[in-house]
């Protein structure tokens, strides 16, 4: 059986700007693949190439072994764009009915289940919904057809943490049922939580692709330890993986590459009042790639 998504030498130029540059990517069926990159790295352009909104300058795209220019290919794909635009006066119900009709009809029971799960009132016009509720409409339309492949552009953006969690669980369930999930993100944690593999994009080029476990091992993170007494930076400086330590007053900030295990063990010997971990963005997490 062919892979779910294959791109070979995929390149897209807009005039003199190369937005995607020789992308070779293979996403297997049934896996959750995280497509990481800061804003402007080319994630949305790649996804638009996968959805036949844009046509490659060179190279090729295959989804489920066929070209996405074929309607039959797109029939198997659920898609959530980065910015969802629906006629403001449509209610969610009308929008879902129309989008479902274009796909031969959504299973109504499935739509109802999704609406309940995301606590979305389908009777209100799209234009009156909060950005989070609009996002929910987008998620429901992408998932309602139970597609074999889900291509989601920053799916959790605009959702509150509870709904982010709900969505990520739902994606895991769908993957367990055999669906392939391709999701882009500009932050590591959500991808780290559910993806089995990830690719990292910088300036349109894939700088790394591999198992999420290996990615985690390379990621830098910063934690602040609030101590009961004066902090001493020297206690942490020689721990393996620690790349920077700074102490101000009672707080010691430690930047670590890979596991934080050693730092926590050292901290356990001190009287720690509070631990604050910072959600680092990709540029900070992967200095080597984005410097």
């Amino acid at each position, binding site marked *: 059986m062919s892979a779910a998504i294959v791109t070979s030498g995929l390149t897209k130029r807009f005039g003199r700007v190369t937005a995607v540059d020789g992308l070779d990517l293979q996403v297997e069926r049934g896996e959750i693949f995280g497509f990481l990159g800061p804003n402007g790295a080319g994630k949305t352009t790649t996804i638009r190439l996968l959805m036949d*909104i*844009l046509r490659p300058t060179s190279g090729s795209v295959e989804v489920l072994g066929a070209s996405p220019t074929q309607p039959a290919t797109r029939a198997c*794909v659920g*898609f959530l764009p980065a*910015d969802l635009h629906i006629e403001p006066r449509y209610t969610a119900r009308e929008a879902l009915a*129309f989008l479902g*009709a*274009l796909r031969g009809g959504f299973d109504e029971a499935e739509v109802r289940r999704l609406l309940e799960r995301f606590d979305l009132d389908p009777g209100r016009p799209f234009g009156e919904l909060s950005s989070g509720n609009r996002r929910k409409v987008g998620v429901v339309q992408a998932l309602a057809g139970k597609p074999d492949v889900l291509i989601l552009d920053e799916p959790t953006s605009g959702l509150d943490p509870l709904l982010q969690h709900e969505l990520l669980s739902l994606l895991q369930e769908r993957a367990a049922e055999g669906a392939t999930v391709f999701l882009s993100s500009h932050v590591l944690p959500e991808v780290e939580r559910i993806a089995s593999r990830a690719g990292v994009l910088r300036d349109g080029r894939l700088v790394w692709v591999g198992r999420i476990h290996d990615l985690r091992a390379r990621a830098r993170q910063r934690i602040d330890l609030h101590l009961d007494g004066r902090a001493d930076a020297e206690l942490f400086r020689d721990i393996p993986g620690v790349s920077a330590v700074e102490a101000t007053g009672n707080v010691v900030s430690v930047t670590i590459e890979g596991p934080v295990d050693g730092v926590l063990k050292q901290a356990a010997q001190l009287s720690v009042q509070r631990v604050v971990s910072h959600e680092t963005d990709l540029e900070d997490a992967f200095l080597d790639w984005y410097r």
Partner: protein
Amino acid sequence: MIAFQRLIADRRRGGIGWGVGMVFGVASTVALWPALRDSGEIDELVQDLPASMRALIGVQEGIPLVSAPGYLQARLFSTLLPVLVLVYGIGLGARAIGGAEEDGTLELAVTAPVTRRRLALERLAASVALTLCLTVVGMLTAVAVGAAVGIFDGLSATRVCVAASAVWTLGLLHLAVAFAVGAAVGRRGPAVTAASAIAVGGYMLHGLAASAPALRGLRVLSPWWWFLDRNLLVHDPTFLAMGLPLLIALALAIGGVVSFERRDLRFP
């Protein structure tokens, strides 16, 4: 025909507004005819106007303005009816692809399992059908009110229908320009601008050519001249008035669909 039905439903409310405006405009225009017919001096007044003004208000040599065909041609078929149909058609044509791409509402439709060709054709067909509806509303109003004020003593209602069809083809031509430009560039503004420029330019050229001999050769470029050169309420329809606009509209529609199929789409 899901995209077709959806677009009709989307434009229903606006379409009703246009229809109401059309009924009032046409009814009040036609209802005024008896008053004009009974005042003898209007024709002399009109003869004093410069030739370009006479052409712009649709007066034709040999057909008195106070006669039914003269009046309807000047007040309805040269001005009110085509202006309403053109403005409505240009708006629909520009939004069919250009506007819907610009505001992003087309994105989920093009990524659905529907070919771009089918999507574009259905949206074009819906726009054409809506323009037809508006024209028919105008035509039926003219026939109904015309019958009530006795305009059809010596003028057949069939002629009115033929002239209304010619208005529709003129509207289609401009709708097709707006559609084709919108489908080619994915933006509404250039589509409206191009179609309006052709509408206004053609109208001015038709009027000016009547009084400026230097421009006479150019009037063949004006779709308004194709339509207005011969009063269709008196003369038989010509290929210029009925056939040519349709052929050009067809060519533009094909060009628009082909370029929409081939290019990158630019969603916000």
